[in-house]
């Protein structure tokens, strides 16, 4: 009995010890699962402790930040932040950590190992002990610098287009009254005899000329929006590039993207940035039309020229505003959410290449935008 008791006690101690030294089988299975998943996912997966030191990163981190997984271990998260953002983000994260809250879409600027700036978007979940103490966070991050850059370029060209539309509008409104002033002044000077008054009329004429020069300056400035370089590109390639930029975002928003890209689609001579903008505008609109998720189907077809169709399963466009959606500054989005220029710019780009864009929509069913480009663009 005594012997049995000792033996039993020993074996208990042994089991306990061995569980420290040799993890049990379930642990091993879970570790294998995790490692395999972590290596499959093309995202940077990480874990930090409660003070912000990295305890784990998968191999992808090297593609993102330049440091390999080993170099990351023990590194402090805050040391990777761009110094200008440091205080703001540290305070923000400390607050999140204190409340042990998960975070989503946390965007911060990081410094790459080689010194350049990256914009990183992260999602994280707190790791809590069974008694609720924060042990750290585990999460996923990705480099969205390209997406941000592209968005900036698009915003920039939208701004220029807005400026163009606005100044053309103003100039036009000013030119009419200016014509009347200028014309009557000229009529006056034809009939005026007094030398003194003729002098004064001349001053008015000169000032009218000055206004006209200002108007010309505005038109020239607007027209300086740089002439775009064109290159031979297959639109399928651009669609795929845009999709790769927004795919992750789309999956977060529960939007499934189907691509039916014609293999025989010819290359066309276009400016890549402009086509990016066209596709991005249409895809963004489709996303906004599907706030609860849905399906976006993008089809390319070789016709006389080609057709590119964007079909969403969103809320549709009410009939009464369908005619207005291509008008500049028309928007149904909240103030500050949309400029009202997306579709107007989209159409002007498509028309610049001799193409057309048409819309078909059914409320509650979805919307189709069809771009037709002629052969030989």
């Amino acid at each position, binding site marked *: 009995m005594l012997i049995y008791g000792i033996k039993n006690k020993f074996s208990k101690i042994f089991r306990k010890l061995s569980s420290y030294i040799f993890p049990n089988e379930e642990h091993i299975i879970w570790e294998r699962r995790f490692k395999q998943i972590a290596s499959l996912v093309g995202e940077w997966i990480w874990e930090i402790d409660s003070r912000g030191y990295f305890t784990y990163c998968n191999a992808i981190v090297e593609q993102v930040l330049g440091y390999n997984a080993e170099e990351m271990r023990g590194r402090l998260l805050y040391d990777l932040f761009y110094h200008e953002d440091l205080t703001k983000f540290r305070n923000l994260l400390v607050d999140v950590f204190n409340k042990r809250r998960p975070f989503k879409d946390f965007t911060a600027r990081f410094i790459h190992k080689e010194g350049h700036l990256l914009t990183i978007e992260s999602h994280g979940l707190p790791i809590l002990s069974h008694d609720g103490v924060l042990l750290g966070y585990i999460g996923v991050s990705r480099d969205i610098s390209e997406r941000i850059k592209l968005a900036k370029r698009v915003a920039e060209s939208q701004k220029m287009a807005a400026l163009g539309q606005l100044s*053309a509008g103003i*100039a*036009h*409104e*000013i*030119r*009419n*009254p*200016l*014509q*009347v*002033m*200028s*014309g*009557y002044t*000229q*009529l006056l000077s*034809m009939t005026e005899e007094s030398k003194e008054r003729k002098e004064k009329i001349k001053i008015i004429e000169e000032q*009218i000329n000055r206004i*006209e020069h200002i*108007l*010309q300056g505005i*038109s*020239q400035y607007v027209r300086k929006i740089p002439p775009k370089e064109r290159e031979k590109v297959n639109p399928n390639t651009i669609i795929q590039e845009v999709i790769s930029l927004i795919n992750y975002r789309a999956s977060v928003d529960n939007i499934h993207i189907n691509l039916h890209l014609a293999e025989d689609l010819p290359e066309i001579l276009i400016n890549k940035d402009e086509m990016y903008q066209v596709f991005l505008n249409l895809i963004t609109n489709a996303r906004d039309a599907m706030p609860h998720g849905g399906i976006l189907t993008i089809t390319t077809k070789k016709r006389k020229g080609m057709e590119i169709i964007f079909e969403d399963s969103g809320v549709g466009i009410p009939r009464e505003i369908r005619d207005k959606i291509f008008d500049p500054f028309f928007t149904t989005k909240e103030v500050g959410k949309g400029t009202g220029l997306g579709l107007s710019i989209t159409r002007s780009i498509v028309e610049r290449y001799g193409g057309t864009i048409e819309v078909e929509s059914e409320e509650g069913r979805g919307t189709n935008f069809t771009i037709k480009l002629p052969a030989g663009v």
Partner: protein
Amino acid sequence: MQEKEKVLVVDDEAMICSLLNEFLTLEGYQVAIAYSGEEALSYAEREKPHIVLLDIKMPGMNGLDVLARIKKANKDTKIIIMTGEDTPKLFTEAKALGADYCILKPFKLENLKRFLTSGKEHYGEESQKI
């Protein structure tokens, strides 16, 4: 005495019409005014003006449509487009539809006079300078 040349002025801005009316009358033309594209077409059909001074942006039928229809009915009518819209695209479009001249507002009455009396060779002179 030689019969006066008939000029039709088409602009929705009344002050532009009065200005041109005064100037052209001084210059010895017989002037008619239309404040819209529709009015212009019915006058043109009835009176067959020699020259039409035509604004582009008007409520209702725009100047380019008026231009096309007048030229279709009578290609000898001289049409001078006067516009406040400073876009080369518009000038090209107007030319393609058969406009004889395009002139950007505000223009010098002197220049208008030159276009009223000259042949086609000066097309787009005004547009060249922008």
